[in-house]
């Protein structure tokens, strides 16, 4: 018996920019190509339709290679992480492996049955009952009916929907729906499992269940391919990893090395968002506007920082009227709008500072913040207020978008998954044996 589960040779996939071309040109082009092909095929010495087509495709700037010359092998029982930036070709690779879309070049050979989980609940029908959907979804995922019938009770128990099994799923709560869908997928027994991390979009509890299930599958000696953005997930689950960049393999091998390579390859540069009047709260005056906000030390070109990396920002601000006793501020919130922290220009390192007086004109306002946020997405807001003897009046309140904190540091360290919450905790612990011990009976 061979030890190799999947072999991939020179795989390539070409797409057209913006999906299929607009209908009219597409239909017309198709018909004219077809007519030309008929003509060409009849006269010797001319390229065939296929060749004309290939030439047209490779030369045309409308096309791009989502994957190019990808070759690697996966041994039986290995858990492999596929990592890379958005658009690196991870999902395309998964789609070709699960045979949803064919490759443009190259081929793949694999042993045994592949099941792919690109989403849960594929093919669920709202009008059908839970029972009917288990059979429908199971069949779509490639289970035999006898197999589903055998595991039926187990699936229902796992999903905790016993009472509602004969109710149409359109009456289910979203939680029940997702549980049932995941329960079916969790009872697949393929030799090879392909998982896209988009699977783990549910609540924390559900994500943990997904990851736990993947660990079980891996322990049972089956082959698993996981596509993920989360370095900590990949490090926890996988023994090997493949790093894709612009459709090509950048690195592959033991997971630690590949993850470290990915982490160090993320260049640091400025990321900028342009803010419009629509981002400014309507309640504030028109005395001052933020034109754009720059993150000076972003790895990549999005509003992203490493875990534990200080945040360094510059706001491009336009002042229209003279502002006296001005204080700038910023706040970071959870995506559910709970405040995590607020910072102000008149307090630096807990020491009071004087407020500012600004004449009309353009200003660059910079601030730095020590970053103790845990990996995740946060909302960023900027504000300004004029201090007056009666109190403060807000002159600026602007939504500056989302800030992403990666789950690895600049040095490639990852936070421990068991630490939860919004911010990193810094603590010291110790223990000491008490001098008076209860008497023990021997």
């Amino acid at each position, binding site marked *: 018996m061979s030890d190799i589960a999947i072999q991939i040779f020179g795989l390539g996939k070409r797409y057209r920019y913006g999906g299929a071309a607009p209908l009219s040109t597409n239909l017309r082009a198709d018909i004219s190509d077809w007519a030309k092909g008929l003509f060409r095929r009849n006269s010797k010495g001319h390229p065939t339709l296929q060749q004309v087509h290939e030439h047209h495709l490779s030369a045309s700037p409308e096309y791009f290679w989502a994957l190019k010359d990808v070759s690697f092998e996966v041994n039986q029982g290995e858990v492999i992480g596929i990592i890379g930036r958005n658009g690196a070709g991870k999902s395309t690779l998964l789609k070709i492996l699960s045979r949803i879309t064919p490759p443009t070049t190259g081929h*793949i050979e694999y042993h045994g049955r592949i099941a792919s989980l690109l989403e849960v609940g594929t093919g669920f029908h709202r*009008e059908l009952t839970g029972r009917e959907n288990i059979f429908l979804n199971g069949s779509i995922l490639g289970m035999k009916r006898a197999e589903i019938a055998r595991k039926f009770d187990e699936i229902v128990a796992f999903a905790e929907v016993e009472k509602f099994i004969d109710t149409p799923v359109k009456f289910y709560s979203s939680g029940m729906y997702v549980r049932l869908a995941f329960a079916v997928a969790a009872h697949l027994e393929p030799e090879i499992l392909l998982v896209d991390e988009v699977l783990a979009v549910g609540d924390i509890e559900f994500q943990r269940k997904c990851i736990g299930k993947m660990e079980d599958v891996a322990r049972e000696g089956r082959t698993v391919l996981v596509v993920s953005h989360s370095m900590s997930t990949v490090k926890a689950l996988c023994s090997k990893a493949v790093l894709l960049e612009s459709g090509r393999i950048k690195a592959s091998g033991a997971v630690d090395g590949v993850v470290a390579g990915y982490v160090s390859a993320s260049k640091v540069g400025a990321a900028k968002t342009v803010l419009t009047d629509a981002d400014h709260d309507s309640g504030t005056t028109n005395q001052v506007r933020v034109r754009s906000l720059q993150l000076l030390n972003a790895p990549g070109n999005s509003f992203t920082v490493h875990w534990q990396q200080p945040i360094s920002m510059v706001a491009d601000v336009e002042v229209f009227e003279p502002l006296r006793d001005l204080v700038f501020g910023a706040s970071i919130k959870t995506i559910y709008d709970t405040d995590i922290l607020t910072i102000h220009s008149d307090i630096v390192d807990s020491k009071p500072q004087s407020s500012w007086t600004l004449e009309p004109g353009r200003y660059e306002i910079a601030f730095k913040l020590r970053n103790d946020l845990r990996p995740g997405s946060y909302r960023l807001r900027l504000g300004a207020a004029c201090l007056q003897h009666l109190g403060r009046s807000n002159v600026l309140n602007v939504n500056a978008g989302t800030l992403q904190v990666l789950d690895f540091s600049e040095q490639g360290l990852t936070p421990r998954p068991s630490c939860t919450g919004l911010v990193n905790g810094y603590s010291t612990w110790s223990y000491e044996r008490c001098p008076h011990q209860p008497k023990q009976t021997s």
Partner: protein
Amino acid sequence: MNTITRISADRHERFRQFLADLWDYRELFWTFVERDIKVRYKQTALGVIWVILQPLFMAGAFAGIFGGIARMPTDGLPYAIFYLGALVSWNTFATALSSSAMSMENNAHLISKIYFPRLVVPGAVVCTSFVDFAIGWTLLNAAALWMGYWHWQLVAVTPLLLAIQAMTVLGFGLALGALNAQYRDVKHGVTFLVQVWMLATPVIYPASRLPAWAQDWLFLNPMAGVVTGYRAALQGVALPWELIGSCALMAVVYLAVGAWFFRKREAKLADIL
């Protein structure tokens, strides 16, 4: 013990895989048939009774308008039998044609997320239409018995006529379904196609009323052979074997062309839907 699967850019290799898959996924085919049947009449008060009511109402309306008002000749059959005989097969044909043309689009969420031989979807649609046909056909037999027009030929010729109908609808449904995935124009054209096709088929009028030149070309439309066949069987006269034979041949051609076209487009479906 382990089967080796090959995914390749080469179309010939894919074809071998395709045949193996079609067999592997036979259970999914029945699951889709079951789903389509179950879903169709969910949350309707009358449920399956609709399958009986539809041809009955339509035959009644046709008999009233074309018989009672227009005095259409029927080759000696009573209007009710004349129209029911044609509508049972025509209705299931028309429904299956338009829903198989839409089947790729309607199942786009599945096709872009999971692999199975795409042929299973339109195949299941056509198979589902057989259920409607079986109910309508039973109704036709009951009506023919009651009115004294039942003839053993009706039962004997049904498998052949049903096969012609199935091949035709699958051939066209496959081609239209694959086309509709790319050009949604097809969806709007299909309604029109079904209407024109019905007029081109001797449903409202008897085939014998067509001019001689038109009768010569009737074999191009296999449904003409199907409808004419049922009517001849109900009349108890000799079946038009020449027409049925050539229609059967044409149906095979349509199926072959439709399946070839579908196969050619199948792989691209997930990228264009």
